């Protein structure tokens, strides 16, 4: 390893990057935009509230009470529908996915049930709904739960089966806090892999690699230069992502020595893959396509954006052979659950992978031509 040579390469790479404003923008801004978009979508996911349209045909104090109860759950913003209109038509005209109808005689039946314990006194609340809507099932589940609770309250008996929840996490975490480690892992991967492939195929096409082959620079120094350069970019990019996350979403994440370690292993692994790709793909354009072919499945299947438990089991098995999975999970283990043992385990797997790929990358890099 020749520090003077690596230093010289770093100076040229960083100057070139700094003077290429578009590349700089996309490297740093793209992951931040992702965090802002997804963070906003999933912000306070627990406190999400739906619009609920209620047509109260009974128009009594008791029936008004039920609408109030629904509103007080915090899950619904209630809008009253004029009792005179046809609810089905109304839903169609206003493109509503759910209108709830409280029938006439609600109060009478309620009193009958409560005071005379009459089992035949009941009411039917009707859901007028659009089954093609994505959120309507969630709304109906929440409503069913509220009504079940009301029914249970009417019987006067305390519930027999009760539930208790215990989080395996020491603290309560929000979606955004699970999301950010995945985005860091993904952003470092894309910058390292695409950056390495783009720069190296371009330098080869321009003949600069050929010129370098007539200087004393070694393949190992060249790859190490690529790794150190990508690591510096990754650290800056990660710091920017974390700053935005703290400033905008007030996230609560553990930042410790695992973070730079996982970033370094991420860089090692994907610069190595980039060097191997550069050897086998000749044209810059096909190199970019080949890099995408590796990056996209990795992005979506390794659990960067969503938990792999949401995927069919064969895809989950597949996810576990993807190197990015171990960076995602390792970063989550260290940043979210502060589980050092798990982080150690994941770093072992990605570390072994990075070592193999790094050595293959050196072997694949070719200075001399045929």
């Amino acid at each position, binding site marked *: 390893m020749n520090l*003077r*040579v690596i*230093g*010289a*390469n770093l*100076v*040229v790479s960083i*100057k*070139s990057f700094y*003077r*290429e404003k578009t590349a700089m923008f996309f490297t740093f801004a793209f992951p931040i935009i992702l965090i802002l978009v997804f963070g906003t979508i999933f912000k306070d996911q627990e406190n999400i509230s739906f619009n609920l349209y209620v047509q109260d045909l009974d128009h009594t104090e008791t029936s008004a009470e039920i609408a109030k109860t629904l509103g007080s759950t915090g899950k619904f913003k209630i809008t009253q529908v004029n009792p005179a209109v046809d609810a089905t038509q109304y839903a169609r005209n206003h493109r509503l996915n759910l209108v709830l109808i409280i029938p006439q005689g609600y109060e009478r039946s309620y009193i009958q049930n409560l005071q005379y314990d009459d089992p035949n006194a009941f009411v039917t609340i009707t859901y007028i709904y659009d089954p093609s809507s994505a959120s309507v099932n969630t709304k109906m589940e929440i409503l069913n739960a509220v009504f079940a609770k009301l029914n249970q309250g009417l019987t006067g008996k305390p519930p027999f089966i009760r539930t208790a929840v215990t989080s395996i996490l020491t603290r309560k975490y929000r979606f955004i806090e699970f999301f950010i480690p995945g985005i860091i892992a993904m952003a470092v991967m894309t910058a390292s892999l695409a950056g390495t492939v783009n720069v190296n195929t371009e330098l080869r096409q*321009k*003949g*600069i690699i*050929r*010129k*370098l*082959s*007539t*200087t*004393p*620079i070694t393949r190992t120094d060249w790859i190490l230069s690529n790794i150190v350069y990508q690591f510096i970019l990754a650290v800056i990019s990660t710091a920017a992502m974390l700053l935005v996350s703290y400033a905008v979403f007030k996230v609560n994440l553990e930042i410790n020595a695992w973070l730079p370690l996982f970033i370094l292993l991420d860089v090692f692994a994907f610069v190595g893959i980039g060097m191997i790709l550069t050897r086998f793909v000749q044209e810059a354009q096909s190199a970019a396509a080949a890099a995408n072919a590796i990056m996209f499945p990795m992005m979506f299947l390794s659990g960067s954006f969503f938990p792999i438990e949401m995927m069919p089991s064969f895809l989950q098995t597949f996810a576990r052979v993807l190197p990015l999975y171990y960076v995602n999970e390792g970063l989550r283990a260290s940043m979210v659950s502060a589980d050092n043992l798990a982080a150690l385990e994941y770093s072992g797997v990605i570390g072994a992978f990075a070592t193999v790929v790094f050595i293959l990358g050196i072997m694949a890099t070719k200075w*001399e*031509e*045929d």
Partner: protein
Amino acid sequence: MTIEAEYAIEVEKLTKRYGDLLAVNDISFNVRKGEVFALLGPNGAGKTTTVEIIDTIRTPTSGKVRLLGMDVTKKKHDIVPRIGVLPQGFSSFDRITVRSTMQYYSRLFCCIDPDIDGLIELVNLKDKAEVQYKNLSGGLRQRLGIAIALVNDPEVVFLDEPTTGLDPRARREVWEVLLGLKKKGKTVFLTTHYMEEAELLADTVAIVSKGKIIATGSPVELIESNSNYLIVTLQSVDEKTLAVVRKMGFEPVSDPHENIRVRVEGTDDVRKILNGVEDAGASFLSLDVRKPNLEEVFLKLTGEALHEGPTGGMGAK
């Protein structure tokens, strides 16, 4: 004086094959220390393949190449610090300035303290030192490439087609830089398809065609040894002249400017042509008799033009 001390480059039975294509076919030659050696030939003759094997970019299929006494296939590590290379189609980092590029390449070599400003001055780039590579013209880029090739004060400099693609003025500016190198006593290995370039710069010229060296010597020697004929040019001839000369058994070649050129064996033939034209009542404006130049020697030896264009010789038959 031992052979190692005398020769900077020794090439013995060098062959390079790409599949079925024989790019370099069993060539041998030596380059003396301190001389400017030019490999002259048309595109596709095998010049670049040859120079890239010698300067360690490519590997040979067979044969031996020794550079500064070392086998190029085994001692690359020891060779590269002692040579400087301007590869064909030289290019550099787009957004890096001339001075920073020089500094970059100098840092790749161990234990050197190059005079970067001196080199920038040598190639006449002083007022462009802070200009980024992407903003340099073709000629300036080549001059930067030459300066980079000199950054480690090499014993042997390889310049692969240093002026290809440049306009005549930029070409002359590069030649000036190369003449400066020659004065410094560097061993220079040059490939070119410009005859004037070889004639102006080279001490020794090797003419290559289809992967073979077909003649070697100084430009003067090459001309002398192949000039058992004269070239007669009759300018602004009238219609009859061509027919008259042909009738006398010569093979005149005409051009669109009403000139004809005839290759003759000696001055007797010149007199014969003049008398014949006069007798037939044909006319011409002026007469030029001279020995052939390198281009015509090349044509005679290979039957092909060095490069396309108006100076492409007197038409290969």
